[in-house]
């Protein structure tokens, strides 16, 4: 392992996540240790039920581990209050979901602006940034369309625009191409990779070996444990 000059952006140490369903316990994550530096492109792979989504949710502060620490940019975020975690999500993390998760009643532009609206950013600034994003993602003439008037690829582009609009340090994508055909999926992946090339840390969960292979680093999960880390191989 090469000695990192600076502290990693993400440092997970001894992370455990146990779901209790009545009497039975499901160890979704067991003693997971991962360091991810700023600007990395990481694919998380593994069979269904191996804990990939659980890991991603923890990284996105949507869930708390039962044990272990998570340091984001040197700061222990596991002990933060719910409101402080919301702040961190707002400022540092962008999510891209398999099923897009756009708000159906809002237009494409409004969906893209949503994180800024929630954060209370001034309307003028919002409008400027949304206009830029619409141009960047080729959605200029779709601004006023609602999600049900968009194709799957367009929806995922809106979702990516929304994930990046707050200029987060990390983008977490859970099966971002799972609901798309191959051509559109490739297009979406290229968009994400462009973001990574601009310095955004990109973490993608995928079943698709080809897609996983494009990442510079692969993590392989099995039964809640980290089985293989291409950076440590």
């Amino acid at each position, binding site marked *: 392992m090469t000695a990192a000059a600076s502290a990693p952006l993400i440092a997970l140490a001894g992370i455990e996540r146990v779901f209790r369903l009545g009497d039975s316990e499901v160890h979704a994550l067991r003693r997971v240790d991962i360091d991810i530096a700023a600007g990395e492109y990481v694919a998380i792979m593994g069979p269904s039920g191996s804990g990939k989504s659980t890991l991603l949710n923890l990284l996105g502060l*949507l869930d708390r581990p039962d044990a272990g620490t998570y340091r984001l940019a040197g700061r222990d975020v596991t002990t933060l209050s719910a409101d402080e975690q919301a702040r961190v999500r707002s400022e540092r993390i962008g999510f891209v979901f398999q099923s897009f998760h756009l708000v*159906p009643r809002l237009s494409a532009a409004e969906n893209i602006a949503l994180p800024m609206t929630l954060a209370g950013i001034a309307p003028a600034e919002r409008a400027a940034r949304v206009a830029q994003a619409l141009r960047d993602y080729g959605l200029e003439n779709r601004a006023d369309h609602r999600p049900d008037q968009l194709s799957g690829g367009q929806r995922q582009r809106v979702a990516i625009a929304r994930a990046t609009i707050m200029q987060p340090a990390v983008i977490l994508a859970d099966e971002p191409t799972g609901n798309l055909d191959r051509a559109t999926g490739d297009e979406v992946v290229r968009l994400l990779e462009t973001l990574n090339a601009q310095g955004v840390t990109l973490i993608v969960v995928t079943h698709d070996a080809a897609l996983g292979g494009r990442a510079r680093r692969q993590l392989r999960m099995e039964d809640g444990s980290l089985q293989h880390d291409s950076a440590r191989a």
Partner: protein
Amino acid sequence: MRLPDLIRFARDAAGGAPLRTGLLVLAMSIGVAAVVILTALGDGARRYVMNEFSSLGSNLVIVLPGRSQTGGFNPGNAVTSTPRDLTIADAQALLRAPAVRRLAPLVVGTSEISFGGRLRQVMVAGTTAEYIEVRSLKLAQGRFLAHGDWGRGVAEAVIGARIRDELFGVEPALGRLVRIGDRRFRVVGVMAASGQGLGMNTDELVIVPAALAQAMFNTNTLFRILVEATGREAIEPAKRQIAEIVRLRHDGEEDVTVITQDAVLATFDRLLGTLTLGVAGIAAISLAVAGILVMNVMLVSVTQRTAEIGLLKALGASAGTIRTAFLAEAAMLSLAGALLGYGLGQAGAAIIRQLYPAFPAWPPDWAVIAGLATALLTGILFGVLPARRAARLDPVQALSRR
């Protein structure tokens, strides 16, 4: 979240489920409209009665036979059995009281009036020439009863406007002979149409000399003596003097009740004010029902928008922001319902006023303000539980739901 964004967000969310939103606004508006219309009716009744009594005449003191125990006016014992007749002579004796300006005895009964083959039931009031002044009434045609001996009376009648129309139509009424009961009277005057009137509407009244009315109804006693005091400050002295004179004439027995218009007004004011309040309370129950509906609708909304709430959390919304957004939505729906209901209620009251011009169906300000405030408050209060439930949702589970 900025306030304008919050409002737009809540509005869009409400607009996204038009049926749900419409039902809720409707329920809330019905509640508020009920408050506005019912209190308009209640307060209208109060004002109507107040008006009527005020128009009875000024500085009025009313003497009625029979003793009322409470001393105050009570509609229940206004008609009591009479131990001793209150006679025309008693009435005349009251003129000796220095605080009395004038007075008119009143005998009341129903009879039939007929002219030229037309016949109808009428209320007959037997009184004297002073009646028109004591009650501040107006004549349309002719003259009122002639002054003269109260114990006799000439067979003359003054008829109400409505009676005139029904009996004579376009023909002149003055000077005609009509039959009332089994006596013939000459019509000497027609009262001006009042359009309204409490108890004794002069429009459908036939006024004859008191002595003749007593003979017609075979009675010696009076229904009332209407006394006009010399001034406002003379009302209380007049009351005392009247009671004293009657007591002396009735062998020391206080067997009449003397009431003042103020006492009557105060009692009716209290009575009808309480009625309005009660009616407002009943209407407020419909607001509480609307509040419970708000809660259910918002709970359904939270359930249906679970995935959206999870998303908002993932995008950085704090629990507080989500709580505020849902509360804002509940408050906006309640406000919309309240305003709509206010409009409906005012329109309803206006229609009532249109249909019954004599009835002042104006909702009182306090009721309108209380109605609107209750609507908003219940809306927000019942919105708290759903809003908190939304804010507490686990984002991971919320997102996994579709």
